[in-house]
């Protein structure tokens, strides 16, 4: 038995309308697949379970500040403490000169956090997943918009849900095979 049901729509507005209708019918475990980030779909999904605003920017900020702090501390340690050689009559600990590297390291690690954050939250770094291989699903990265309702949804019932989706004007409806 399939653990989810997938419905295909022609464009993002149809998908957004479908989401609203399905939510009105009590479906909660909704997810959409689409070839570009459509604002209508975003809006329609607000309130469904996985749709909280991304908190990755906070992670980036945290990593950036942490890296900047470490970068400054390292410069102090190496130039100001461990072997405080004197150059050009400057004091070994010379904060002004330590700014550029501090800044750069902050940016670098914030960027790492951002990139790795997306991969992590999007459960990426993989080759395939549960919906890949569903007939016609390759259009999700091309020109079609897909709605997913998980079997875990309390309102889910294979036949009724399919009927509900047909009502929303889905172009096709697929039940992906469960992986071996």
């Amino acid at each position: 038995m399939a653990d989810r049901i997938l419905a295909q729509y022609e464009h993002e507005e149809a998908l957004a309308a479908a989401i609203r209708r399905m939510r009105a019918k009590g479906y909660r475990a909704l997810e959409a697949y689409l070839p570009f980030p459509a604002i209508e779909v975003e809006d329609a999904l607000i309130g469904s379970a996985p749709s909280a605003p991304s908190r990755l920017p906070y992670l980036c900020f945290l990593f950036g500040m942490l890296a900047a702090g470490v970068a400054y501390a390292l410069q102090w340690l190496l130039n100001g403490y461990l072997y405080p050689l004197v150059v050009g009559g400057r004091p070994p600990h010379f904060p002004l000169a330590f700014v550029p590297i501090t800044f750069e390291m902050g940016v670098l690690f914030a960027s790492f956090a951002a990139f790795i954050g997306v991969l992590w939250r999007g459960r990426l770094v993989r080759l395939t997943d549960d919906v890949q291989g569903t007939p016609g699903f390759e259009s999700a990265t091309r020109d079609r918009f897909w709605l997913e309702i998980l079997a875990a949804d309390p309102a889910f019932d294979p036949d009724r849900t399919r009927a509900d989706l047909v009502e929303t004007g889905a172009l096709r409806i697929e039940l992906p095979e469960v992986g071996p």
Partner: protein
Amino acid sequence: MTPRLYPPWSNLVYRGALVLLFAGAASLVIVPMLYVRTPYNTSQFQPWSQPVEFDHRHHVRDDGIECLYCHSSAERSASAGVPPTAVCMGCHSQVWQQSPLLEVVRRSYFSGQPISWRRVHQLPGFVYFDHSVHIAHGFPCERCHGDVGRMARVTQVAPLTMNWCLDCHRDFQAGVGSERVTDNAWTSSMRMLFKRVASDRRVTLLTTCTTCHR
């Protein structure tokens, strides 16, 4: 439709491959760092074979000969020096004068050809180490050379890396003031090997670069 592009198990392979890739890249950095710290790279503990089976244990411990008796220029010169053949023959014209072990020494002495010893402690060319000033400040020989009196074959015990030099140069007092320079006081020297945490790391004439690099 075509079958699935990737089978489900491919995810594991993919992630494993990526981890290996990153680990490989990291090891390119980490492995050399570890390597330079190995005794192999620093030439520590390598029992070189020498042209003469000279046993320091016998000369130092049994006979009680001071280090400076043979390595006399250590007091006056940057170089500690390996004794001239004549110094060996000073004693061995009297004792063991027939020993086959000393054949190389005798041959050198009478032919005028020097004995070709293998260098055990070698610093890079740009390091100017001066034995005499260390001796004058009471650094025991063992501090750097280990307890040669217990070595059948002399090996290098200290890594002779720059950070090893700096440990003492930062904490200068640690090695000074020993009563007798050539005491075979290995144990007390060991204590000194454990560097006290230097509270003041400011650059001094002992830690500025031209102290050793000129």
